[in-house]
């Protein structure tokens, strides 16, 4: 045993190899292998007449993806939703993150951290299911609005073109609410972590130099929180792009990228198009990551 450990101490690369081979073998075959298989299949195409997959490398599927307006619509719709959700999450998260990072102490602070993490880790499906009930026509949100005598406001919001619909549970507005709810903790936590790191002396200096609290917040705190916001936005953006459960459980009839992937591989049996569609979020996320990186997202993770 002792000679064995001395052997590895002297030859660290052998030790490393011994540790790394099992996880890499697993990861390389199961995960990377699958990703490559996916990428490979996106270069196949489907025969329009026989509906069989033609196993010859071609760009036809990608051409179909970028030239058919319906497919482009799906990508644009998903990206728009992802950006809107990210912005809304950032706005809602800001007071929470600020309060828990800068003002709350002791028990209140612990209460806030647990309070943000519990819903984050609560079963995903249960949360979606809960929202389906909340948004239903006779559900609690409609009840709440009518109790307040504001039923007209809700109807007016639902009557709006593009985002409205027959009820909250079948409109983009409702879907947007659900997305914001689901990913909010993923924005709050990195943002709070970034705000925790703002030195108190900077705030005092700002106050001493005559800035009002709002000015200090805008000119000192906010710029320092940007890396945290960027880090959080990576999660909200990426999670919205790939989700297919929420758009199929709550929401308007228009397709989203995730649903497109799901439907194409399933009922439509068009694995090549599904594969090509799933490359879209990968590309979008890498573009987004490179932007977020400039704002210091990786320093705040």
């Amino acid at each position: 045993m002792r000679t064995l450990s001395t052997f590895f101490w002297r030859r660290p690369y052998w030790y490393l190899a011994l540790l790394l081979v099992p996880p890499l073998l697993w990861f390389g075959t199961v995960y990377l292998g699958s990703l490559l298989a996916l990428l490979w299949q996106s270069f196949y195409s489907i025969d329009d007449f026989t509906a069989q997959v033609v196993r010859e490398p071609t760009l036809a599927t990608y051409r179909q993806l970028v030239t058919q307006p319906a497919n482009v619509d799906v990508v644009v719709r998903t990206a728009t939703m992802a950006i809107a959700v990210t912005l809304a999450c950032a706005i809602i998260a800001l007071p929470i993150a600020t309060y828990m990072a800068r003002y709350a102490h002791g028990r209140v602070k612990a209460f806030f951290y647990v309070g943000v993490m519990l819903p984050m880790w609560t079963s995903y499906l249960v949360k979606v299911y809960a929202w389906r009930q909340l948004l239903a026509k006779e559900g609690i949100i409609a009840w709440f609005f009518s109790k307040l005598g504001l039923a007209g406001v809700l109807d007016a919001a639902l009557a709006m073109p593009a985002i409205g619909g027959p009820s909250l549970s079948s409109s983009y507005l409702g879907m947007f609410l659900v997305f914001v709810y689901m990913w909010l903790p993923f924005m709050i936590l990195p943002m709070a972590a970034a705000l925790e790191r703002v030195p108190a002396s900077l705030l005092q200096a700002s106050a001493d130099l005559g800035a009002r609290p709002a000015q200090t917040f805008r000119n000192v705190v906010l710029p320092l929180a940007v890396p945290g916001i960027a880090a959080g936005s990576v999660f909200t953006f990426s999670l919205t792009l790939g989700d297919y459960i929420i758009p199929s459980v709550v929401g308007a009839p228009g397709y989203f990228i995730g649903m497109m992937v799901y439907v194409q591989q399933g009922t439509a049996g068009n694995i090549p198009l599904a594969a090509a569609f799933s490359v879209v979020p990968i590309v979008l996320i890498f573009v987004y990551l490179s932007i977020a990186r400039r704002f210091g997202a990786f320093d705040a993770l």
Partner: protein
Amino acid sequence: MRSRARYRPDRPSWLIRGGAFAGLAFMHIPVLIIILYAFTTEDRTYQFPPPGLTLRWFHAAFARSDIWQSLSLSLAVAACATTLALILGTLAAFALARSRFTGKDALTVLFVLPIALPGIITGIALLAAMKLGGIDASFLTIVAGHATFCLVIVYNNVVARLRRLPASWVEASMDLGASGSQTLRYVLLPQVATAFLAGGMLAFALSFDEIIVTIFTAGKERTLPIWFFNELFRPRDRPVTNVVAVIVMAVTLVPIVLAYYLTRPDDEHETSR
């Protein structure tokens, strides 16, 4: 003349305080509502407020064999995936925590890819590979899919702990004459144990609750989340679904709360996914 309020770091404006508490309420109300609905006497609509409260649906849910089957399948999958992830994730963490070699950065990125990319990509990729390789969906394919992202969770937890462990401890142990295995047993493992356990708990909870990848790799098998998902589109037994929702929440929350307390003393707010 406008009075110039001095910046008081201990006194938030009402806007921040109000926004913070309202936001926290927003995050909890849906979950509380679902718990309330599990006890409602109304079984057809989502009527609010519930006309009455009952425990009837819990009896109904416990009598359903399909729920028990799905529950035990989910527990079995989570146990297998977690075990696999604990072994592989810990090995990877020990290898990558301190070492330096060419290609290490690429490996580090590789090991977070399954949670950085949307779950649907993992799902469709596994399906594409299964189709190419002629592998049928089964219990094993579900476990393989889950182990992939569970591994990342374990790896993240253990690697974070190892990086915080001062390198001098290992050197001191060796200098004092401990062998490699003694150092591992008396210095490294006691330090890593809680992170290892916490990673395992989170992985278990995540696997138990997973739907996005599972749909692609499950074939005809029905884990509890798949059972639940199907119910969403065929709302026949809505009250029973509500009860299952509460059960799922309870099963996932227990390991998560445990993991939180296991990692709390030194890395308080870092149980990130």
